């Protein structure tokens, strides 16, 4: 489905702060959902990873709130930061979750989210007319690029699992 046209309109610095905050907040919520899914299926290693990822995004959101000073970035985000059909850039793809997924899979989801966020802020740098918006977007690009690098570093610790990672001796799909 075409998803390209729906993005929040960023006219000034406060809009960008609100959108950046919302992007982090959406990522937090998504990681929490994924952690709960893994909890329900007793995949404890993944519960911890998704909760850690949620906490990391939460810290980024708090940093943006601090950066916004007295401006109520949370309320403004609720008003303008709607991504429509496109979805929030940093949200992990929930439909790629699997009850036997491994840390490598979790980090792949995270990497894809960070790369989408990086591309999103890069587009703002390229199109922004307001120099203050452009300057903040450049900072955000730097941060997202660092997050992409961080996930790549983490992936060194968790190599790609074997092709049989989803094999289950007692599978739920009894029809096969």
């Amino acid at each position, binding site marked *: *489905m*075409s998803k390209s046209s729906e993005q929040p309109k960023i006219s000034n610095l406060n809009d960008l702060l609100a959108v950046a905050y919302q992007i982090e907040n959406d990522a937090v*919520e998504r990681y929490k*959902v*994924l952690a*709960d*899914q*893994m*909890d*329900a*299926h007793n995949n404890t290693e993944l519960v911890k990873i998704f909760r850690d990822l949620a906490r990391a995004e939460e810290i980024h959101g708090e940093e943006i709130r601090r950066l916004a000073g007295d401006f109520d970035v949370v309320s403004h985000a*609720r008003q303008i930061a*709607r*991504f*429509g*059909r*496109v*979805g929030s850039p940093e949200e992990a793809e*929930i*439909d*790629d*979750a*699997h*009850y036997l*997924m491994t840390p490598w899979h979790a980090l792949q989801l995270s990497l894809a989210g960070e790369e989408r966020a990086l591309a999103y802020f890069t587009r703002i740098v390229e199109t922004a007319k307001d120099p203050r918006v452009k300057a903040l977007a450049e900072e955000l690009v730097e941060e997202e690029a660092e997050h992409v690098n961080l996930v790549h570093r983490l992936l060194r610790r968790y190599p790609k699992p074997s092709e049989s990672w989803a094999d289950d001796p007692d599978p*739920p*799909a*009894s*029809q*096969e």
Partner: protein
Amino acid sequence: MSGPTTRHACKPGDYKSELKPIWCPGCGDYHVLMSFTRAFAQLGLPSENIAVVSGIGCSSRIPAYTNCYGFHGVHGRSLALAAGLKVTRPDLTVIVASGDGDGYSIGGNHFLHACRRNIDMTYVVMDNRIYGMTKGQPSPTTEPEFDTALTPGGTGVAPFHPLVVALASGANFIARCFSGAPNETADILAEAIRHPGFSFVEVLSPCVTFRPDEKDWKEMVRPASVPETSDQGKAARRLMTDDGFNIGILYRGHRPPLQPAIGGAGVELSELEKDFEL
């Protein structure tokens, strides 16, 4: 939509219960739950003014995951329960949740008459074309060529067309959504709730366990190429030729909702019960 006239400032998370969903990871129903809470927040509805009624099946677990009033009812009977609730408590916003087995097979007859009666409520059917909870039997919307150990060589039975049936039976609002686009689904749900009368929203919600092929739906769905219509004839032609992947509001009718008077005859329940005393 009946109920509150004042909007409450709520976040989607405010409508979630403490209970964690036990759907399979990757299930489309997680997205539907997100869409419910986002739609409620968008409308600013107080959770105590919402009732979510369901039948049986994976999708019907959804009331427990909201902090609204909920009723996890009998298989296929969610619409009957919800109709009774809405008639006696018109102040509530009533949402009915179902799946393609619960809603179109076991509850198929209730579906026809709920459309016909046009009571002001919103019926959301999470369609994954399979009975997931009972491990993969074909449902009324399963394709005839669905070939498994339970249906060797396919079912050979033409699928049910819920949107066509809804239109022919009198539903006042008909839409189709895709679970993988939760913001868009939330917007359509909010519209369905706002619209007076019986609103029917089919949500394509993949079953990743028994229908992994449905992961492809993400690439198959598309926004409906023609705008919504209030003309039943146009809607019928469109829905009859629809391939099942057009997303959006497809029909918006203007029939006044049915709201029978309650207690108008002045008869107390205790008086009625006297006739049945042994």
